[in-house]
C-alpha cells in the first residue's frame, strides 16, 4: 500500500474546482459579450462602503491561503516517519519490528513477498504479494491468525492498527517453443 495522499488530493481538487469555476465564468462572460468591467462597480461600491470588514476579510483570506499552501507543500515533501516502539524499557526500532512482521508474513502459504512499514506507535502498513493462484481467503485468514495476532501479542496491545494490501501476482504465460 502506498503512503496516503488524501491532503494533496483534497487540496488539488478544491483549487482545481475554484479555478475551473472562475475561469469558466470569465470565458462565459466573454463569450456572451457582456460589456461590463471585470471588477464589478456594484461590488466595488459595496466594498468601499464596508471597507473595514472587507479589508479584514481579504487579509484573513490571504493568511488562510498561506497556511493551507504551506501545509499542502509540507504534506507532499515531508519524509514519512517510521517511529520506534517502546516496549516496557526496551526500544524496538521500526526496522526490527518491520523485519519481524515481514518474516512472519512471508511464512504464510501463498505469499511470495511482503513489504512492511511501521507508520505509527504502533501501527503497520503491509503489502503482500501473493503467488498466482494463491488462496486469497486462506491468506486473509492466516494474516490475522498468524501474523498480526503475533505482533499484537509481542507488543502487548489489544488493537494494532494495520492497513494491508493484497496483490495477486500475474499469471505466468506458457510459451510454446
Amino acid at each position, binding site marked *: 500500500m502506498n503512503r496516503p495522499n488524501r491532503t494533496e488530493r483534497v487540496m488539488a481538487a478544491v483549487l482545481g474546482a475554484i479555478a475551473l469555476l472562475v475561469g469558466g465564468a470569465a470565458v462565459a462572460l466573454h463569450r456572451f459579450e457582456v460589456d461590463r468591467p471585470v*471588477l464589478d462597480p456594484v461590488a466595488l461600491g459595496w466594498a468601499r462602503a464596508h471597507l473595514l470588514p472587507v479589508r479584514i476579510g481579504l487579509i484573513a483570506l490571504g493568511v488562510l491561503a498561506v497556511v493551507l499552501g504551506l501545509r499542502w507543500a509540507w504534506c507532499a515533501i515531508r519524509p514519512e516517519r517510521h517511529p520506534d516502539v517502546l516496549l516496557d524499557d526496551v526500544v524496538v526500532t521500526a526496522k526490527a519490528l518491520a523485519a519481524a512482521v515481514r518474516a512472519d508474513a512471508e511464512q504464510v502459504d501463498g505469499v511470495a513477498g511482503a513489504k512492511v512499514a511501521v507508520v505509527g506507535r504502533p501501527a503497520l502498513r503491509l503489502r503482500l504479494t501473493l503467488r498466482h493462484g494463491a488462496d486469497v481467503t486462506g491468506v486473509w485468514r492466516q494474516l490475522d491468525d498468524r501474523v498480526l495476532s503475533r505482533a499484537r501479542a509481542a507488543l502487548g496491545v489489544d488493537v494494532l492498527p494495520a492497513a494491508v494490501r493484497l496483490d495477486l501476482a500475474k499469471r505466468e504465460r506458457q510459451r510454446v517453443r
Partner: protein
Amino acid sequence: MRILLRVLSPVLGVALAAAGALLAAVVVRHWSGRGWPVRADWSSVDRPVLLVGACLAVGGLFLLVVASRAGARQVPLDDPADGVRVVTTPTSLARVVGHRVRAEDGVLDASVTASRRRVRVRATSRLHDEATLRPRLLEVAEAAVADLPMPVRPKVSVVVISPKDRP
C-alpha cells in the same frame, strides 16, 4: 498520476501561499493609504479576460482530473480484526476470477476486468457454444467471488466468444 500529484503539490502549495501573502500585503498597503499597485479596468469583452479565463479553466480541469485519478483504486475486503483494514486491487480481483475460469474445461482463454462493483468475464472457447458454457462459467465466477471475504459482492457477468455461435 500519484507521482504527478506528488510533484505538483509542493509547487502549487508554495504558489498558493505566495498568492495569499501577496493579497495580504497589497491589502495592508492599501490600508496604509497608498493606492492599488495595479490598475485592472478590463471589461469582460477584452481579450486578456478570455485568455486568463481559458487558462484557469483548463488548469482547474487538469487539477481535478489529477486529483481524482491519483487515489489508489482499491477493493475493500472484510476487516479480520479491530483496526485492521485489508484491501486488494481490481487487478488482483480479476486475476482470482480469471484463474478459476481458465481452469474450466473447454475454456481456451479468458480476460477479466473488475471493479469494486462489477466483474466482467470474456471467455473464448472452441468446443462449446455460449448457451452451454455461459451458465457454467457464471457459476464458477460467482463462486470465486463469493469465496472472497468481501463486504460488498460485485456483480458478475460472463460473455462467451465461440466459433460455434457464428451463423
